[in-house]
């Protein structure tokens, strides 16, 4: 099928099977590699992107749901030169170890803070627990979120 949607502000049209997940459309069709595959079944969160402003698991969003959608990936959130406050906080806190989960962690955190600029510890736990980090960077993720809250408040 033909699907037409916006990715990081650019209109994209792809011709793909209708049940092809957004994750693989981004990676193998469009060539945006910042969004990662970890499990394919909504268990790890490595594939998290924003769809119309909401954090979603891109491995669960199919081509037929995409027409007209606005997608933001980690590449569209910020860049090395112009970082999003959440990315700045992640860098200052030196969260990443292998880093493979961090695109998804950052996208999840950015969406949480956009909807709720001052989440409680319990709210952070609830929102962030779908994102697996095999390297165990959770203490620094918590720290970075606190720092991002400060930055965004400032």
């Amino acid at each position, binding site marked *: 099928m033909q699907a037409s949607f916006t990715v990081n502000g650019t209109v994209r049209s792809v011709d793909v099977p209708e049940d092809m997940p957004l994750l693989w459309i981004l990676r193998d069709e469009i060539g945006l*590699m910042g969004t990662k595959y970890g499990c394919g079944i909504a268990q790890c969160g490595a594939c998290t992107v924003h769809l119309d402003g909401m954090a979603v698991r891109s491995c669960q969003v199919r081509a037929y749901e995409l027409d007209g959608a606005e997608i933001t990936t980690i590449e569209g959130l910020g860049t090395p030169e112009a970082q999003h406050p959440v990315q700045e906080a992640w860098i200052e806190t030196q969260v990443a170890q292998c*880093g493979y989960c961090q695109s998804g962690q950052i996208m999840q955190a950015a969406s949480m803070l956009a909807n709720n600029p001052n989440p409680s510890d319990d709210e952070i736990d609830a929102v962030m*627990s779908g994102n697996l980090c095999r*390297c165990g960077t959770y203490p620094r993720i918590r720290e970075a979120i606190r720092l991002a809250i400060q930055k965004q408040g400032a």
Partner: protein
Amino acid sequence: MGKLRTLTRRTFLVGSTAVAGGVAFGIYRAKAPFENPNLAGLPEGAASFNPWVIIDAEKITLIAPHADKGQGVFSAQAAMIVEELDIELDQVEISFGTPDKAYMNGALTDAMVPFPQYDYGKVAEGARRFAGGVVRAALPIMGTGGSSAMPDSYDKLREAGAVARETLKAAASQQAGVPIEGLRTENGAVWLPDGTALTYTSLSAAAAQIEPVTNVTLRDPSQWRILGKPMERVDIVAKSTGTLPYGVDHKTDGMLFATVKVNPRQGGVLISHDATAALAMEGVVDVFEITGGISVVANNTWTAIQAANAITCEWGEATYPPEQDAHWTALSASFTDDRLNAEARNVGDVDAAPGAEVIAEYRSPYVAHAPLEPLNATILVSDDRVDVWTGHQLQMFAVDMVAKITGVDRDNVHLHNQFIGGSFGHRLEFDYLKQAAEIAMKMRGTPVKMTYSREEDFAHDFPRHITMGRGIGKHENGKVTALDVQIAGQSVMTSQMSRIGFSLPGPDTQLHEGAWDYPNLNLPNIRVRSYKETGLAPVSSWRSVGAAPNGFIYDTLLDETIHAAGADPLMERIRLMGHDVSVKVLETVGEMCGWNGHDLGAGRGRGVAYVFSFGVPVATVVEVTQTERGIRLDEVWVAADVGQVIDPVNLENLAQGGTLFGLGHAMNCEITYSDGMAQQSNYHAHESMRLYQAPKVNFTALENNPKIKGFGEPPVPPAAPALGNAIFAATGQRIRELPFNKHIDFV
């Protein structure tokens, strides 16, 4: 990279050499760490130089050969060079280099000698040097594992930086006609007394012409500018902006995408398959048989995985007992003389020692590595060369494997090592690479990226080896008097080495590592015996290898015996510990948490555990509360002695991550077999820790250890016993089997 590839081993016959437009620095033969007669007959340059610094007219390139799987060694290696070179990290390019014996890992063999790593005596050190020499001569390993990257790199990379600096100064002195004493180096340049700066790049051609200065003195840590202080990891911005390409992100023109479906009964054959449905799918390019299974090549990874799922296969039998129970039965029957792997330690007389007995049996299951980046490799087989893009920890063996399958000479196999999205040991294995090579052979001329689905990864992991422990602890008058520890396990080293074509020359030390070298030198009676099983599932090194199961067995038995004696868990461990560096570690963790006994009142408790692994003593205290819905992890304290801290921030991150890794898997992870297949297929069934469960982890690093040590693995082993000991302190329930959630709930 193009330029580096032309630097063959032969180019590095001296401490520096001219390269296109510049100079490459290494280390002289005289700087080799030992003079071993075995080395006299080595081919020229085979083990004696280490090309790490390359300077040409445009730029400075540092080679960081150790694979980075998240432990931060890419940054750390470069930092060691720039510390001596007087340049900043953002002024250099860093490359993984090409696989070469020159980058062999000199520290991997430290654990291969029969001396505990806290023994720095003459005999033990001599044996380590000898083992290093023999292995270098026979089998130089360029590899990353065993928490060895730091000890391997520490001296030689700083020396490489210092040699380059002094040689550049000598070149500047000649060029400017100024005595060397009047020169100083800073910010990537040699500065003349009149304030003129000669950049290193401008001096590169001249430096290539002169005899390198190899008589250098390394700076004392008190003078360090960069090392020992928090540094911004060079990959941190890329890893926080989605711009760091991992192996799985490799892109190249005309590339196709593949996946595999191999017999989930590991080692079994493919009897037949029906790919009719798969071949009819849009985007499927080809389906063909490979060793043990089939491969699908398609227009994208998703289609390849869908098509693989649509293929029906008839599989042959596994090479091990099909049902999990039989694995435990086999281990429990392995505590016999003919299975004795080693009597690794025997002091005093455990049988005759006085005291009441604690008798216990422990189980540590198979556990998956499951790094978040799925296993993958992109391979292009062309007419006269093969290019491989993958992240691997044993780069030279990887090249050999691909050379063998493709029939291309190993010199024409070019491995481009990639950043790694986690390994935990799985990227020491070769199956995925061999499968990718078989696929690329069939698809000759087309680059093919082979990616495992997560389900294939779980089905085809070589998990952590299964282990059973039996112990007797004795106590009298409130003191522990004896520990008799017996450990039976599926031999991880036998299994792993068989897949690279070697047989294990002697006992498998991983079956008692972390138990035999537990330095409780004040305990008068200790015996540690290990028993070897080889007929169970194929297994592989899992972060901290034997020290994880063995540390759990040893330290839990110790804890049980201390409790039976009525002694304090921390104080009695300190009393038994004859090793000063370790005593300090235990005392430190006690101070950090304000230790005041294990019992914190109703439903709350603390457990302490200690394990010595990879030369690092680590003590961990876990505090838990029993809630209505289960055990909650409240807080954790960790103290460790790594000898020398290179980057305190990264070290803390590794301490937190390694501890949570150890705790998470102890809570809820195991691989079990039924009908010969792993029953866990994805993270929902093998979850480890999630953020809501992660306690605060406090960390203190000590530097009393006489040698620098790596820290990727040592935080892992004490986590599980500390948690088990804490659960006992809070609830009175002693759980002797991992994972703990088989017996208790967690919130």
